[in-house]
């Protein structure tokens, strides 16, 4: 009785929290925008009194722009920028004023991030622009990178989850450049030359770059020095535009044979085009289906269904191409049951159980909280603004993104689901013991292709 009373007392407070008016927007960072020479977009958030500056540089190019026979060259070029800036040991020495330098691929684009002391906010920009102008590589640079990559490939191949995700991309995206592995293959990176790296670095400026600084400084203070540095860069080499091939048609199952695993790793999902320009709808779909314990998948499969596998979602927006997949560790005996349950849940979303208004409100609110949490720290704020840029939204207008999230409707999220989730195009990859899994997977009604046996 006490529990019931407590629930009744709490519920109105919780239920009343749904739906906020536009005027309830919290105080958001004031983002200053400046267009620098060479079409470099600069976004600055002044936060006086904070003791560091967070920096992000987002290039307009990513691994999908690598030439197929040199796949992975972009990643190596990105690391080369750091080497050219300071040298790997030099970066350690620069640590007194610059720290946490990270280079990688985010939302399909090459990105570098770091933090600095406020008074040294421009130091690494100088080094990076110098490296973009004239990449410097130690004599044995390429050999040492290739040796490290060789170890990375072996590590990744040994990881069932990583293998499943890479094979899934290839299965779902076919010949699309985004299907190729970001880090390339032993063959494509093994043949790289210094000239390949220099050429690729020169392409890094081919499309607008976006620079983000958040911390104790101001846009006027950084505009002129940064402009001077970017102005000195030579004209970029163009990236040849290629025609995007159509996505593969039809459902498919690939079973990657591996023994000695306690559990198999399963990835399933599909790719497509959400249509229009609605990244918020896709992110809300990802959130309401699989993000967290309250996602529909967890609720249906684990909480209500008593299943023990938990699917994690992975959505990626690469311009016109989007994909949404779900991965889980599953015991061999329940693999087919897990795939079937996932398929049924996704079919229901595009069938007779579309996203409800309450689910969408909850998902949008969750996305908003994540966004606000990011904005609260300098490091997180720079990253959140970068993501807006990658999604084609205005990084100078975080309020517009919040309004977009709050304006989400069940119809829009339902449209996104129908554009992406097509049971007839479902791609499924399982990494596990083929001697145990091939036959049961065959009962799903799709030919099972076994590799690695």
């Amino acid at each position: 009785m006490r529990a019931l009373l407590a629930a009744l007392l709490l519920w109105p407070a919780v239920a009343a929290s749904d739906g906020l008016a536009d005027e309830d927007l919290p105080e958001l960072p004031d983002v200053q925008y400046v267009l620098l020479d060479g079409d470099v977009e600069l976004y600055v958030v002044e936060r006086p009194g904070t003791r560091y500056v967070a920096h992000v540089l987002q290039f307009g190019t990513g691994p999908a722009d690598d030439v197929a026979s040199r796949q992975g060259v972009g990643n190596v070029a990105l690391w080369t920028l750091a080497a050219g800036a300071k040298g790997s040991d030099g970066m350690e020495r620069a640590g007194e004023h610059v720290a946490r330098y990270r280079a990688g691929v985010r939302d399909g684009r090459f990105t570098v991030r770091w933090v600095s002391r406020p008074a040294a906010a421009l130091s690494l920009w100088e080094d990076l622009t110098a490296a973009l102008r004239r990449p410097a590589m130690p004599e044995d640079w390429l050999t040492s990178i290739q040796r490290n990559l060789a170890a990375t490939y072996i590590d990744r191949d040994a990881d069932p989850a990583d293998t499943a995700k890479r094979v899934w991309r290839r299965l779902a995206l076919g010949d699309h450049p985004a299907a190729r592995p970001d880090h390339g293959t032993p063959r494509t990176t093994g043949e790289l030359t210094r000239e390949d790296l220099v050429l690729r670095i020169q392409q890094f400026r081919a499309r607008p770059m976006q620079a983000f600084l958040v911390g104790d400084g101001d846009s006027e203070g950084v505009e002129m020095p940064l402009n001077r540095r970017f102005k000195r860069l030579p004209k970029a080499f163009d990236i040849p535009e290629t025609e995007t091939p159509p996505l593969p048609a039809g459902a498919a199952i690939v079973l990657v044979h591996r023994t000695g695993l306690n559990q198999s790793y399963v990835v399933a999902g599909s790719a497509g085009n959400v249509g229009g320009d609605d990244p918020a709808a896709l992110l809300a779909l990802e959130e309401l289906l699989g993000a967290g314990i309250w996602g529909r998948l967890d609720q249906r499969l684990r909480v209500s269904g008593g299943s023990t596998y938990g699917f994690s979602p992975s959505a990626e927006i690469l311009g016109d191409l989007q994909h949404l997949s779900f991965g889980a560790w599953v015991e061999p005996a329940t693999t087919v049951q897990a795939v079937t349950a996932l398929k049924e849940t996704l079919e229901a979303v595009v069938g007779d159980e579309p996203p409800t208004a309450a689910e969408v409100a909850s998902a949008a609110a969750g996305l908003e909280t994540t966004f606000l949490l990011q904005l609260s720290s300098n490091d997180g704020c720079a990253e959140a603004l970068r993501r807006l840029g990658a999604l084609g939204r205005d990084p100078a207008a975080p309020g517009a993104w919040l309004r977009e999230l709050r304006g989400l409707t069940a119809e829009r999220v339902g449209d996104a689901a129908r554009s992406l989730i097509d049971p007839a195009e479902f791609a499924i990859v399982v990494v596990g013991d083929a001697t145990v899994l091939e036959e049961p997977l065959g009962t799903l009604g799709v030919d099972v292709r076994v590799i690695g046996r």
Partner: protein
Amino acid sequence: MKRAAVWGVLCVLAWAPATAQEVWEDELERADEGVNTPLRKTLPNGIRVGIQQDAGAAVVVLTTRVQVGWAMDPPGLDQLAHIVEHAMFRPAEGEGPGYSELIAKLGGHTNATTDADETVYTTIVPSRHLDTVLAIEARRFLRGLEQVSLGDLATEREIVRQEALQKAPYNREYRHLEAELFPVGHPYHVDADADLKHLERIRDASVVAFQREAYRPDVISLGIAGDLDPHAAMKKVEALFGPMPKPEHPAVSASVDRPPARERRVLLESRAGNSTILLGWVVDGYGDAGSHRWRDIAPILRIWLSGRLPRERGITHVSVRRRPFGALSILTVDVRGVGRIDPDLVVSELSWILSQFEALGTHRDGLDSLREFREDATASDWAGPVVNYDDPVVLARYLADEPATSSGRAAVPESGLVHLVKKFLRLDRAVLVASLPPEVER
């Protein structure tokens, strides 16, 4: 224009020389100024509370830390504390939605982790929902698991088993290292190959009783950070968590001894073509008075070793890490490479390289060069306290800990570092775990 000039001057000043040690100490001091001014209070029932306003955040983060971890699992009931953590998210019968669902409806996120000595629950919600989230949190801690459905407990028990098995493909070498460093009988011992079938024997009554007895208010602390009024939030906490009954007897704090160092070797077969060789030692924990002695060791050794191990033997990667492990910590040298790398070769090379390091401690010039080396190696640590506490999630976690003390901050002289390496990081008392591909017959 004027501001641009000021910025330029500051940039120049930034490169004025200052020793890394000074930078680090200064940074810690300044970080402490920022984070050591929370509103702190211990409620009459023993719950400790730390609250701090972070006006830049539009969210609040609530961290509830319970000093109960898997090291307290009764014999034969491994994973019991972990099952309790999962069960705490389940609703009591008749209560309506569970904790996660309620938080999701507030637009929030929640999660928890079970460590050796603690279980930490973290919840993030928009700041306007602080009162509601405190009420929901207080409710689940006050009512315990008595009325949670037995079916739910059974599901969570199985999910915990699956989670533990899922970790198996990862960090296999580290799990074996930990199992050897903490031998059978030590509270931190975990069987590296456990199949966890015993979980089926864990009865619901055990889960309920363990939570009731272990989750006492005097082992619970709350950390709250975000856009809030600290005094109003404290009043709310007192009203909501105050009713949790004060235990009749104070909690018995079990001390965890450092196991004696011993040489052990574990050879595993690598499923890929890579070699991984780990050497590990148990050293002081992060909360110990002696912790500061080890602060600089990992970054110094990492750079010292990585530049000296023979890359031509296939070694591609060397790292040195000190990781907290409950009340203690583990210092690990992690060597990786392509193909089969001979562990004896690694040990022999390490022996020579460490002897060179130790030789620096025997003369003044050596100590001077070690000082310079140390400054370079530890300089980048300035960002840790500055950047981490800018994140409300980290800040709330910090607030739920014991207030930091400045004792033990004094820097260990270079000769002391050499002494520590010589005394504790002995290769003849290391646990070595090697994962190697099969030997190729010639």
